C-alpha cells in the first residue's frame, strides 16, 4: 500500500500524472484547473518529472501540441476548464477522430456568460459528443486512480482514444483530503509502456488526418463510434485490474442502497457523495430510496443502467447542466432514451441544480425527493424537468 497523505486534490492529481511518467504537458492556466498545471510545472522544473512542459499561448495550442505528442507515440497530458475547453473544442474533436490517446482532466466549471468561475457541468456537456472516453471522479482518490486508469485505457490497442476525467471544480479540485498514493511497482504493473499502433516516424511514413470525401467519411466515423462503444469492455477490465492491484473497485455505475429501493437518485460527479447522505437520512424516515452514481459518461452504460433500475418505480435524475430548449438535462435525456419502452419503465423526474457551485445540501436533496414524490402522484408527464431552488420558478 502506498503512502496516505493529506493533499489538495489538484496536487495529488498532478502527482498521479507524474507517476504515469508522461513525456509532455502542454497547458494554459484557467481557474479552477490552475493548481494542477502549476504543480506539474514545479515537478518538471525541480527535475522530479522528466518531461517537456510547454507553456502554450492558448488552449487551442495546448490540445494541438498534445495531438502532435500523441501522434509521435509519446504520452501527453493537459487539463483545462470551461472557456478553455471551448477554445480548445476544434482540436478536442480532432484528436478522438484521429484516435490519438492522451488524458485530459477537465476541472468542471460553468460556461459563460454571465462569467462564472464556479462549478457545474455545462462545460462537460459541451463536449458530450466529442468522441472521448469520459469518466466522472467523486473524490480525490478517484481522481488519482483515474489518471493512471486513463492512460491504461487510452493506449490500449483495442481503444486508442483520448480519455477525459471530469473533476468538479473547486468543490473537488481545491479540497484537502487524504489520498493513498500508488507504489511505483504497482504503476509499472498496471500501466505498460505506450506502444502506439501507428506513430509518425521517418522510417515508417504515414499520413494522419487526411481528407475523406463522401465515399469514405461515414466508414471512418462508424469505425470511431464502434471503437468508443467497444471500449467499454476494455474500461471494465482496466477497472478490474486496478481493483486487483490497489484494492479499490470501480464500475460504470456505482450503487448505494439501490437494490431494494423504489426510488433512485441518479447523479454525476461529487454530488453523489452528498446525495448518499440524503439517502441515509431519508431511509431513517422509512423512505425506500437509493442512489446510482454515473461514473462512465461516454460510452454511456445503457445496459448497466437498464439492469440497475429494474426494480425501481421512479428515478430522480440530478443534472448540473442545461440542454437549452431541450426536455431536461443531458443525463435525464440519455436515461429516458435508455429506458424507453423497457418493461417496468420507471417514471423519471429531473431536477437541474447546483449551477455555478450553488450549494445543494442534504436537506435540499430531501426536498427534491419530496417534490419528486408529489410530481409523480399528480402527473409525472406534466413537466419533464424542474429547476430546483431558482427564485421565481
Amino acid at each position, binding site marked *: 500500500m502506498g503512502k496516505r497523505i*493529506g493533499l489538495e486534490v489538484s496536487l495529488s492529481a498532478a502527482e498521479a500524472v507524474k507517476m504515469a511518467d508522461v513525456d509532455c504537458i502542454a497547458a494554459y492556466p484557467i481557474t479552477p484547473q490552475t493548481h494542477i498545471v502549476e504543480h506539474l510545472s514545479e515537478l518538471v522544473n525541480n527535475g522530479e518529472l522528466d518531461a517537456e512542459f510547454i507553456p502554450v499561448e492558448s488552449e487551442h495550442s495546448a490540445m494541438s501540441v498534445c495531438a502532435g505528442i500523441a501522434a509521435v507515440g509519446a504520452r501527453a497530458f493537459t487539463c483545462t476548464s470551461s472557456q478553455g475547453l471551448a477554445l480548445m473544442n476544434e482540436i478536442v474533436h480532432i484528436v478522438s477522430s484521429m484516435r490519438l490517446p492522451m488524458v485530459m482532466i477537465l476541472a468542471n466549471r460553468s460556461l459563460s456568460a454571465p462569467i462564472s468561475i*464556479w462549478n457545474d457541468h455545462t462545460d462537460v456537456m459541451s463536449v458530450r459528443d466529442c468522441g472521448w472516453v469520459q469518466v466522472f471522479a467523486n473524490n480525490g482518490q478517484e481522481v488519482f486512480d483515474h489518471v493512471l486508469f486513463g492512460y491504461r485505457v487510452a493506449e490500449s490497442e483495442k481503444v486508442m482514444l483520448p480519455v477525459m476525467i471530469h473533476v468538479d471544480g473547486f*468543490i473537488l479540485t481545491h479540497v*484537502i483530503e487524504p489520498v493513498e498514493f500508488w507504489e511505483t511497482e504497482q504503476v509499472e504493473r498496471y500501466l505498460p509502456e505506450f506502444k502506439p499502433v501507428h506513430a509518425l516516424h521517418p522510417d515508417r511514413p504515414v499520413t494522419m488526418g487526411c481528407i475523406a470525401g463522401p465515399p469514405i467519411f461515414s466508414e471512418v466515423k462508424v469505425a470511431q463510434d464502434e471503437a468508443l462503444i467497444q471500449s467499454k469492455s476494455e474500461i471494465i477490465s482496466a477497472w478490474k485490474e486496478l481493483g486487483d492491484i490497489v484494492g479499490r473497485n470501480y464500475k460504470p455505475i456505482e450503487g448505494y442502497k439501490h437494490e431494494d429501493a423504489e426510488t433512485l437518485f441518479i447523479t454525476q460527479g461529487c454530488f453523489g457523495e452528498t446525495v448518499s447522505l440524503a439517502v441515509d437520512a431519508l431511509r431513517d424516515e422509512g423512505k425506500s430510496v437509493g442512489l446510482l452514481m454515473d461514473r462512465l459518461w461516454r460510452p454511456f452504460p445503457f445496459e448497466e443502467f437498464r439492469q440497475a433500475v429494474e426494480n425501481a418505480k421512479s428515478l430522480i435524475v440530478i443534472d448540473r447542466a442545461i440542454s437549452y430548449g431541450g426536455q431536461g438535462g443531458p443525463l435525464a435525456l440519455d436515461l429516458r432514451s435508455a429506458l424507453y419502452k423497457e418493461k417496468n419503465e420507471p417514471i423519471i423526474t429531473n431536477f437541474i441544480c447546483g449551477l455555478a457551485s450553488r450549494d445543494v445540501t442534504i436537506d435540499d436533496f430531501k426536498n427534491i425527493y419530496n417534490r419528486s414524490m408529489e410530481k409523480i402522484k399528480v402527473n409525472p408527464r406534466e413537466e419533464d424537468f424542474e429547476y430546483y431552488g431558482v427564485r421565481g420558478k
Partner: protein
Amino acid sequence: MLEIRLHGRGGQGAVTSAELLAQAAIKEGKYGQAFPSFGPERRGAPVVAFCRIDEKQIKIRSNINEPDIVLVLDPSILRIVDVAAGLKGDGILVTNTKHKADEIRKELNLKCKLAVVNANGIAREELGLPITNTTMLGALLKAKAVVSPDSLIEPLRERFGRIAEKNIRAFKRAFKETELAF
C-alpha cells in the same frame, strides 16, 4: 464528525489554517477535509474556510452551515459578519481579540462557549506581523483537542520552512494564553 468554520480576511491564512488542521487529522489516521469558500481571491475581504474531521470517510461536500466550532482569525470581523450563525447549541466560538471573554460576550450578545486570545499581540511579537493563522490554531486546540498539538507540528514545519519555528512558538503561546469561558 466535527465541523469547523473559519472566518478571516483574504491573505490572513484562514485557508492555510483549515488545511493544516485537515492534514494533522489525516496524519493521525483520521479523515480530514478542508476547503476555501470558493471565489476570486480578494486580499482584505472577509473570507470563510471550512474543515471537517471524522473517524470515517467524509462524504459531504457542501458548505458548513451548522459548525461545532467557529474560529475567527481577525477581531474586526466580529462586528461585520455574523460569525456565530448556525453554531450548534454546545458549539464553541474561538476568536482573536484583545478583550476579555465577558466583554465580547456582552458586546455581541453571545450565548455560546467562548475562547479568546490576543492573537494579534502574540503574532506581532513572535512573527513581527499580525498574521494569525498558526496562532489561532493554538487557541483552537486549547478550546477543543480536535487533533493533538504534536500532529500539527509536522505539517506546520512542512508549510513554513525557515519561519516554522517562529510559527510554532506563536502556536504554543496561544495554546497557553487562551482564556476559556465555557
